[in-house]
């Protein structure tokens, strides 16, 4: 990846991270740790991979994104707003009564949200159906399913993952945001999901590993997964840091993942993010 391209993606990721901090700060709730870990992945996906038309969100031939770890919807909302699916001012109504941006995604309300969610463990199954539908219509759409590592504890994930390789032609690429944390602590201490590579391989998926915060690595991982897509489903295991970019969240000092942000924390997070990247952002105050 060229330096200028990487710089551009880093700048977009910074804007998205700041918007996540602002929206969860204004809402005083929302899962910030799980959202911040996903940012670089979503930025790469939405700016470099997806065939979409933000001005025509229901374009039939579009690629689909199923956010299975839907508690990270602040990240998705901030990406969709910055990608032009709706006005950024919607972000400040996140979780409010009547808002377009619900606490967990409600597809009928939000342009750019392709699938229902809220109850985890359902992404691969929905992706299977979307892939079948595009096959019936002879479309070349690809389906991207974003999973969390904690939600792989749900049995329904594996029910669906077992089916995907047998669904014939179609392109499903799953990505696991391996931030290592779930609601009550480290995934490995609560219900160990490892060895994950071997699990997916034994389910006949191609496994690609990547650093989920390194755009060069993500570029290689997506390229490999897409190259293999005709042969069957691929999954990118993306190592990430929970709360990436905000020290309190990275260190797990926010406590319970949905603990409310406050003005002080929000300002601290925005300052940290600006200084870490040399202030490439717009410097907008909120």
């Amino acid at each position, binding site marked *: 990846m060229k330096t200028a391209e990487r710089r551009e993606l880093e700048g977009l990721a910074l804007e998205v991270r700041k918007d996540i901090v602002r929206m969860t700060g204004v809402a005083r709730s929302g899962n910030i740790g799980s959202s911040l870990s996903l940012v670089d992945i979503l930025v790469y996906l939405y700016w470099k991979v997806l065939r979409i038309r933000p001005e025509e969100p229901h374009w039939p031939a579009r690629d689909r994104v199923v956010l299975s770890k839907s508690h990270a919807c602040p990240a998705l909302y901030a990406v969709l707003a910055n990608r032009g699916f709706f006005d950024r001012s919607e972000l400040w109504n996140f979780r409010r009564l009547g808002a377009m941006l619900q606490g967990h995604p409600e597809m009928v309300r939000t342009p750019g949200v392709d699938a229902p969610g809220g109850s985890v463990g359902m992404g691969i199954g929905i992706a299977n*159906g979307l892939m079948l539908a595009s096959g019936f219509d002879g479309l070349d759409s690809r389906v991207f399913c974003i999973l969390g590592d904690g939600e792989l504890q749900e049995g329904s994930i594996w029910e669906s993952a077992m089916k995907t390789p047998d669904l014939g032609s179609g392109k499903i690429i799953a990505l696991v945001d391996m931030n290592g944390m779930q609601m009550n602590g480290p995934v490995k201490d609560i219900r160990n999901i490892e060895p994950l590579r071997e699990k997916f391989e034994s389910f006949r998926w191609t496994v690609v590993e990547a650093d989920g915060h390194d755009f060069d690595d993500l570029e290689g991982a997506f390229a490999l997964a897409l190259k293999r897509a005709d042969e069957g489903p691929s999954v990118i295991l993306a190592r990430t840091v929970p709360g990436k970019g905000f020290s309190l969240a990275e260190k797990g000092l926010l406590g319970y993942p949905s603990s409310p942000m406050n003005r002080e924390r929000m300002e601290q997070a925005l300052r940290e993010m600006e200084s870490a990247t040399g202030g490439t952002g717009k410097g907008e105050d909120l």
Partner: protein
Amino acid sequence: MKSTLEGFGEGLLEAARERKDLILLHADMDAVPIIDPFVSNFPGRAINCGVSEQDMIMTAAGLALGGKTPVVLSWSAFLTTRAFDQIRTCLAIPGLQAILAGTHAGLSAGEEGVSHQMNQDIALMRSLPNMSVLVPADAASSSESVSLSLDHPGPVYLRLGADRVPDTCTDRNADVRAGSGRLLREGDGITICACGIMVHEALKAAEILSQQGISAEVIDCFSIKPLPSQQILASLRRTGCCVVAEEHNLIGGLGEAVASLSASENPVPVRCVAISDRYGQSGAPRELQEYYGLTFREIVGESAQAWSMRRR
């Protein structure tokens, strides 16, 4: 005599001929006689999802999101319970169009025993906003239910039985839709609302009641949600009392729906013939019907009670 499952199969073939977007998904139900004709008529449009109801519903949701009309078939006992979260999250909340056909419902699972006899499915499905619930009484009504469901927005739960049932729906040309009832017999002494296998019992009960001087009006309430409220209320205004008969637990079914309607709009005595909040056991469906008190005799008895308390 055919089962409502067989009737559904016929309606499904008809609908699939007209609608190229209709896709059948089932959870390893090849042994059910309706699958083979579908597969041979529409190769490539039937998907055996294996024994995985949750994945089947999620796949159906994906298909619906991609512009297809999924029709899902499984045992009602497993479809409505194992995949309830998926049904709620992936289909009901977004209001996606789909038919959920739950077969071997009620006592028709017979000898399979309690685990397979599903008498709580109506309660589960009708509690979901956006979900409609249809319970056909005979094969013809069941066949028609497929097109009624496709003409209705959102997901529809279609409750099917595997046991052969007598024909009750005589007026083939009636203008029905999801939300209407079939008036099978007119009367002004008592309103009998029934669904599924209890419609036939209700007609038998009405015959006996007429000999006792009570003129019973029988409504086939095949559409439990939306309920044919105006039709039921109009009948209650004439009769002043009601019996509801259903092959379902007393809690959460048609009986409660009608009682609740009556309580808020026109309070009259409403008595229910249903399964009295208990589980079943192995036995032939007809034996079970006798054992659990789901016959015309109970309808006659309850009708006499309700009639004695009628309010007009």
